[in-house]
């Protein structure tokens, strides 16, 4: 062996998935060796490099240092006193962090650079990154490189890593309408997302079932539309907390307010907003989608989305647009009259388009970009060219692979979720299928492929709440995380299994209730509280 260095090619890597290389997700380039350095928890520090653009006072990194110290050493950090003066090259007492570009107080964005390099050798133990967000990703990797002998000594192996994400949008969707998720469930999820290098929390806040988002312009929305306006709501303070908690972990919060369908819970709080459905010539007492024929609707939306645009700092808002049921619109005479007036004939897709276009214009005027579900594209709604289309339907109207080709050939950016509906469960190791999805496996030009900005794992809430969210999500969502971060070539199932099984035990160690992949055990099992 040349030196004691093993050079990994991506395909060979499977052979060397030892303790020191059980990383998840797998980095773009890694070179590691059996040479190891001892780490003494009591004296180990994270330090800013003298020439780093980020220095003490940088909230994102200061807090990350504290988190990773706790995650790595916990209470062990102070148990074994060790004389400071004894220093050998076989010891590492700090990780030096060098961030090139200043900026600690901004929010991460779709264009944020997450690259980093990690160099651990005799001379240095250095994490170099373009931005603080890259430094966060590198800290996570570093934390996964540290291992512990059965006697309890901490080690890190000589390692070189150069890493960057394959896709810039790596998201996880939570649905807080079908079931309310306590704030703590959301915050805990953000932590685990960071462990998996996810960077977008797609918050499907409201839907037919309930409206837990407390709006300060329209407080009746939650008063009348939430499951319980005292306990099952997200206050402005809660939302702020989520956004800041996410920011500190390099995660964007993409808020979704889905219209014109999926809006039943909006109705009680905003009289006149929803379409009254008719049975024959009389209102049936039930309601359908948002009423697109009234000016009031657009005035409401205009005020409401002004609030939303202010509350959520991300450039993008998710405007929904999926599964609009036309039957109620069809039954309503006022809608029929409006269709006639507009010359839409019997084509309710045109009515839907009219609504969505008006809404998109409103949101654009607030300086926001938007993401919509694929129906908006399928129904040929005229959208801005920088719209992001999220593909979620597996088979209909076309297979999702085909849909990706269609969306990108029309020049739109695409997000893939169709094969990653994690709320759908089956017996056995279904993570393998999730893992083997190749987002770019559609026919299209390199330019088209470049329009795929990433994907999202979706955990819809019909059958999910805080009782079962965590084990259903992890480590299955981890499979999506690696697909979106690592090189396309990293797709060997055995290699993935070994690392993912190791990673899930690490999650347990970190207190995350991640479910098993197969038979076996972890040194630290989940303990009931």
């Amino acid at each position, binding site marked *: 062996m040349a030196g004691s260095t093993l050079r990994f090619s991506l395909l060979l890597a499977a052979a060397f998935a030892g303790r020191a290389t059980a990383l998840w997700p797998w980095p773009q380039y890694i070179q590691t060796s059996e040479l190891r350095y001892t780490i003494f928890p009591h004296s180990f520090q994270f330090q800013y490099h003298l020439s780093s653009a980020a220095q003490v006072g940088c909230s994102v990194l200061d807090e990350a240092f504290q988190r990773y110290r706790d995650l790595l050493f916990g209470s062990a950090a102070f148990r074994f006193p060790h004389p400071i003066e004894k220093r050998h090259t076989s010891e590492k007492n700090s990780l030096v962090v060098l961030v090139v570009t200043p900026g600690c107080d901004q929010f991460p964005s779709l264009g944020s650079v997450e690259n980093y390099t990690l160099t651990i050798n005799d001379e240095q133990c250095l994490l170099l990154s373009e931005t603080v967000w890259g430094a966060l990703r590198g800290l996570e990797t570093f934390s996964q490189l540290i291992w512990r002998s059965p006697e309890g000594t901490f080690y890190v192996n000589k390692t070189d890593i150069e890493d960057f994400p394959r896709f810039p949008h790596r998201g996880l969707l939570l649905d807080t309408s079908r079931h309310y998720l306590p704030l703590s469930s959301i915050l805990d999820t953000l932590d685990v997302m960071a462990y998996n290098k996810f960077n977008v929390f797609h918050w499907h806040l409201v839907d037919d*079932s309930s409206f837990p988002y407390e709006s300060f312009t329209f407080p009746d929305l939650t008063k009348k539309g939430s*499951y319980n306006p005292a306990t*099952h709501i997200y206050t402005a303070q809660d939302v702020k907390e989520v956004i800041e908690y996410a920011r500190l972990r390099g995660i964007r919060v993409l808020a979704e307010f889905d219209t014109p369908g999926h809006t039943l819970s909006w109705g009680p709080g905003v009289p006149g907003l929803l379409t009254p459905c008719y049975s024959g010539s009389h209102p049936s007492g039930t309601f359908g989608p948002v009423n697109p024929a009234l000016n009031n609707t657009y005035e409401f939306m205009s005020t409401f989305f002004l609030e939303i645009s202010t509350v959520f700092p991300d450039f993008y808002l998710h405007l929904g647009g999926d599964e609009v049921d036309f039957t109620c619109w069809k039954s309503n005479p006022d809608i029929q009259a409006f269709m006639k007036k507009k010359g839409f004939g019997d084509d309710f897709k045109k009515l839907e388009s009219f609504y969505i276009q008006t809404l998109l214009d409103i949101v654009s005027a607030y300086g926001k970009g938007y993401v919509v579900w694929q129906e908006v594209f399928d129904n040929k709604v005229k959208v801005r060219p920088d719209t992001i289309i999220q593909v979620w339907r597996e088979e209909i109207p076309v297979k999702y692979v085909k849909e990706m080709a269609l969306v990108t050939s029309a020049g739109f950016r695409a997000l893939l979720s169709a094969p990653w509906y994690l709320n759908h469960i089956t017996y056995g190791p279904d993570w393998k299928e999730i893992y083997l999805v190749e987002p770019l496996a559609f026919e299209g030009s390199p330019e088209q492929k470049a329009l795929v900005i990433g994907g999202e794992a979706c955990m819809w809430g019909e059958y999910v709440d805080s*009782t*079962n*969210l*965590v084990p259903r999500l992890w480590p299955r969502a981890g499979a999506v995380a690696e697909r979106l971060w690592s090189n396309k070539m990293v797709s060997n199932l055995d290699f993935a299994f070994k690392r993912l099984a190791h990673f899930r035990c690490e999650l347990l160690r970190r207190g995350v209730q991640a*479910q098993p992949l197969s038979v076996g055990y972890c040194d630290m099992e989940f303990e009931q509280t």
Partner: protein
Amino acid sequence: MEQRGLGRLRLPGLLALLAALGVLVVQAALGRRRAQTPRISASRNQNLWPLPVTVRTTPRLLYLSPGNFFFGHSPTSKAGPSCAVLQEAFRRKMELQKLEVSVIMDPECDSFPSITSDESCEYLCHGNRLFTKLLVTDSRARSLETFSQLIYQHSSGTFTANESNIVDSPRFPHRGILIDTSRHFLPIKTILKTLDAMAFNKFNVLHWHIVDDQSFPYQSITFPELSNKGSYSLSHVYTPNDVRTVIEYARFRGIRVLPEFDSPGHTASWGKGQKDVLTPCYHSREPSGTFGPINPILNSTYSFLSKLFKEISTVFPDKFIHLGGDEVDFHCWYETLLTTPLHPFLKPLALEVGVEVVLDMISAMKKTSIVWQEVFDDEGKLTPGTVVQVWKKRNFHMKLRKITAAGFPVIISAPWYLDLISYGEDWTGYYLVEPLNFAGTPEQKQLVIGGEACIWGEYVDATNLTPRLWPRASAVGERLWSHQDVTDLEDAYRRLIRHRCRMVGRGIAAQPLLPGYCEHEGRM
């Protein structure tokens, strides 16, 4: 009848002072009431799960004051403050003014529950705002669970119950949950939590599939090497004290612990700590280095099994022992037997001999054996009275007919493998299974002693056990407890949704049935 003394049991303080308040004594000896159809009054109670045999409630409301409510023993009760099972149960239901409990049958306060334990009960819930009550029951605390479910809290915070009269008894005496602690180790806390949830659903058997191929967590006193070498790690072990804790915790909840030591297959983990117990497999007349089922042709095997089962029969007080016997891979035996001229046994014979010896062993220990259906299928000679557990879903009703026709008691689990998950509301499928829906005589039907919901451990450990088990297993719980005619899905939905929220409120992370919410959401 002995006067149990005066005084009152004040909760949460544990002082047992029985108050001899004027109570109505019902002297009805309650047998099992299989024949009775459920009768529910117009003001149907939406809170009960599983549904009792008869419930009569009136709109009249009775109020409880949490500060003053207490459980007391009726002067005529056969059980008194020294009955630990009841005293503990009283404490668990401490949130509730006074419930007077009268046990009319042998109270079985210090013994273990058994298959013949009388679980029937009748109680009247009546009186003025004073809320005096009478309860007639065995000491198994089932009726206390029912009582606790009758209490609801007004939005004003007042604890309330409707005046009611309930007569109840289970349809089947064996209502089990199978847990598998070999594929994944389940910490003791998780097992105890499961026992709590079982009691909330009136389950009365914990079928503990304690060992299997993957690991041997049971720490044997006689053969400590079995777990020393065969467990996942030395911290993934159930010590004798752990096992005692589980058994006692279960007993206080009227739950039997049925241990399963599956053999001759599913025993790979046994081989690590016990030399020669497994069959060495052959490949082309050479030992292949791998091992198959228990080696049935060595005398040493039987002396080992005899000692092991002797220990097990002492450690586990239940009258039944589950011997497994499922999915035996004959391939290894064949190869070995073919290359061992001294033992020209053929397969069925080898198994038959093995099974017969083990069954005799168990009989000699005055225990009854339970086996998986293969043992019956493979036409081993089953000792009369051996219970057969049916687990293969395909044509299971046919199998029930055959086994009961041969005169063996059966336990059903075929339609209730809860580890097989799917998207959506799969509990309705478990709920609508009718266990006695097979062609057979009334005597045959009598041989169906109950069923078990199984949560095998290949993909289940402490992280996901509870939400995967509850409330899906509750569907099985009602099927095994309530009357055959209790099959209205809409009604079940309404009650189960409430029951699920109640479990969540009691700290059981039972997953949701459909979109909605509980007043108090679960926190993991």
